[in-house]
């Protein structure tokens, strides 16, 4: 409370700036500016899809080739102008489009009601998805099976874990992959694959709880002093934590094997129980089933958590920490809980990954991996488990799929372009979470502020 009853500023009549009321030149009006924007976008599209060049001369000649090849240039700029024309003069098209949309919505409405009605439809859908997940990889080539496990599967687990941290508790964690590394190195240690020997050599399956607890402890250790921080500050702290873990893995030669990584191969997980004897070998499919099982279990557990007092408390903390505290919530405790749960999930993913690939080194856990998981979560829809899964699947498979169509080096450029477009046009993600979507809607209508890690993008559009 400040100032007290300070005398009011004397009122000043605003001066009318006559120059500002003059009509703008035609090229300064929004419509034509947008045309310029679309043409530039078309040119950029022509450049990125055009021939490649390396080195300065090759770069110039490739640019020359791009700008002299009339078909490509024409098509790309044409696309730009067409999009502009639809945007500016497409009003007559909009009405039929809306009717069609409404028609579809009306057709789908009974299905939606049925889905929302009870628990059984959800279970049925879940079972169908699970079945599809079990069957589809069988129909794929071995290369794609490897992609499913090492690219998509592991990231599915990571994304489900990060969703708890950022989607529900609203904590921007840029060092998430550090816990993944901790999990992977835990399994390497307990299976005797590092230069230091463990007290007992264990099966990777037995290491899972140990790794999960280790990551839980690491999460608490990092979180306890830092979770008083908010948004940006926490992001930097987690970034630093990632660097520490990475550099320790890289430089502690005697313990982690340094940059060469594990000295021996990490054994594949195996089961010897009640006459059951099974060894996960080199074949990717069994690992896929393992990941599928873990993901399904986590999805069930976490969605229960979301609809419990814990999930509600997380939403409260995310939306208004002051009000949450005033309502008796120990906000630091809840943030810590989210952080630790996310870290444990990340550790589980690390165990699965390490025991699949057999050899790990620090460069399996770059900062980029953290950023990628984050973008998968945001792309899919923060806070929505279905969205996060779909987003991760799309974005991890896309670069692999693009491989057959575009030069390999260009793949991540298209990924980047997709992310940019998504954030502009659909910041809430592919399948938005109910609560997050409300936040964006309310923020757009001026009620409450969506937080920095949440729906800030939605407020600017």
């Amino acid at each position: 409370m400040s100032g007290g009853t300070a005398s009011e500023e004397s009122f000043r009549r605003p001066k009318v700036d006559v120059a500002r009321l003059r009509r703008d030149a035609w090229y300064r009006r929004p419509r034509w500016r947008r045309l310029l924007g679309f043409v530039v976008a078309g040119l950029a599209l022509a450049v990125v899809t055009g021939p490649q060049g390396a080195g300065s001369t090759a770069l110039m000649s490739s640019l020359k080739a791009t700008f002299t090849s009339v078909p490509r240039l024409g098509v790309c700029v044409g696309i730009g102008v067409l999009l502009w024309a639809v945007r500016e003069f497409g009003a007559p098209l909009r009405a039929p489009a809306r009717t069609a949309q409404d028609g579809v919505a009306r057709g789908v409405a009974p299905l939606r009601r049925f889905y929302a009605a009870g628990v059984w439809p959800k279970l049925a859908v879940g079972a169908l998805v699970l079945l599809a997940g079990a069957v589809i990889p069988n129909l794929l080539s071995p290369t794609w099976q490897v992609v499913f496990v090492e690219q998509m599967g592991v990231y599915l687990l990571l994304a489900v874990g990060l969703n708890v941290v950022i989607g529900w508790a609203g904590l921007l964690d840029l060092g998430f992959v550090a816990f993944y590394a901790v999990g992977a190195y835990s399994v390497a240690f307990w299976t005797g694959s590092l230069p230091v020997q463990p007290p007992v050599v264990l099966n990777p399956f037995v290491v899972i709880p140990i790794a999960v607890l280790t990551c839980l402890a690491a999460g608490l250790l990092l979180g306890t002093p830092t979770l008083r921080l908010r948004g940006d500050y926490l992001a930097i702290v987690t970034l630093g934590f990632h660097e520490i873990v990475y550099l320790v893995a890289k430089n502690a030669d005697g313990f982690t094997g340094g940059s060469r990584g594990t000295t021996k191969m990490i054994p594949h997980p195996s089961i010897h129980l009640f006459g059951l004897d099974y060894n996960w070998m080199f074949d990717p499919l069994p690992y896929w089933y393992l990941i599928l099982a873990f993901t399904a279990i986590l999805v069930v557990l976490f969605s229960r958590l979301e609809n419990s007092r814990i999930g509600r408390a997380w939403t409260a903390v995310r939306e208004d920490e002051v009000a949450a505290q005033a309502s008796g919530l120990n906000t630091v405790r809840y943030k810590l809980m989210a952080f630790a749960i996310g870290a444990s999930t990340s550790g589980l993913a690390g165990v699965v990954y390490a025991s699949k690939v057999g050899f790990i080194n620090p460069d399996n856990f770059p900062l980029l991996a953290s950023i990628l998981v984050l973008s998968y979560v945001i792309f899919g829809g923060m806070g929505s488990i279905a969205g996060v899964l779909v987003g991760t699947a799309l974005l991890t498979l896309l670069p692999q799929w693009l491989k057959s169509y575009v030069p390999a080096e260009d793949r991540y450029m298209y990924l980047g372009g997709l992310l940019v477009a998504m954030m502009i046009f659909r910041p809430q993600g592919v399948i938005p979470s109910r609560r997050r979507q409300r936040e964006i809607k309310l923020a757009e209508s001026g009620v409450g502020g969506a937080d920095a890690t949440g729906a800030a993008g939605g407020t600017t559009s």
Partner: protein
Amino acid sequence: MTATATMDASGGGEVLRTRGVTLRFGGLVSLQDIDLTMRRGEILAVIGPNGAGKTSLFNVLTGVYTPQEGELTFIRADGAPVSLLGRKPYRVNRLGLARTFQNIRLFAALTALENVQIAAERAQRSGPIANMLGMPWARRDQKASAGRAAELLEFAGLGARVNELAGNLNYGDQRRLEMARALASDPEVLLLDEPAAGTNRVEKEQMAALIRRINEELAISVLLIEHDMRLVMSVAHRVMVLNFGRVIAEGRPEQVQRDPAVVEAYLGAAEEDAENTRETGDAVGREDADE
């Protein structure tokens, strides 16, 4: 006033006591030597011009700010005094002081029910693992808190709005929802920061009735900040007037209303009635001070 008589009959002991509380922000003195004594079961109103230190007083009491000097004591139902100094806001809440905010702070994307439920279940025992596994006691907790929240919404007159988003409620309903949320933490003292600000006359009357019901039916002591003199005069048992961070008057509403120092503080001149006072107070603008 009959309410005063009820209060006297209950003969409440002290529930909240501050002695010599001083809060400074750099060179700015926000609260100076505040002695406040609140008796159990009473409705005590704190009034004063904007910037007088009312919301700062709330923030000091609820642990948002720590005063540089003075004592803050909460007296529990069993008579044991507990110092509030240095306690975090959530601990103050758990001791039995719940508050609302001047600029409404609801969880806008949650439903009315969920908003209240969060406060009702703040101290439940079921942890993350029990909830993940859907253990019976976690389900029981869940049911209990949902039931309690529905009850309180009914009490606050929001029974028909249970599943509406907090952000979509109208202003008066949001104020009442905030009160329901505060009540859900089973407080002994309820601190209301301008509960009637921005509401119309009908809503103000409903608000006054709700405050009285909270006080009489739930036996909760109410510390009330309010600009609306009509509301203050109709519900408060006692009034404390702050100006420039100091207590300038204290007593029964009708005494305080006539106190020349109070009239002076509000208007800088005499001869104006309470209704004008309120309008002046509102026109100067909202103080924004709870962070």
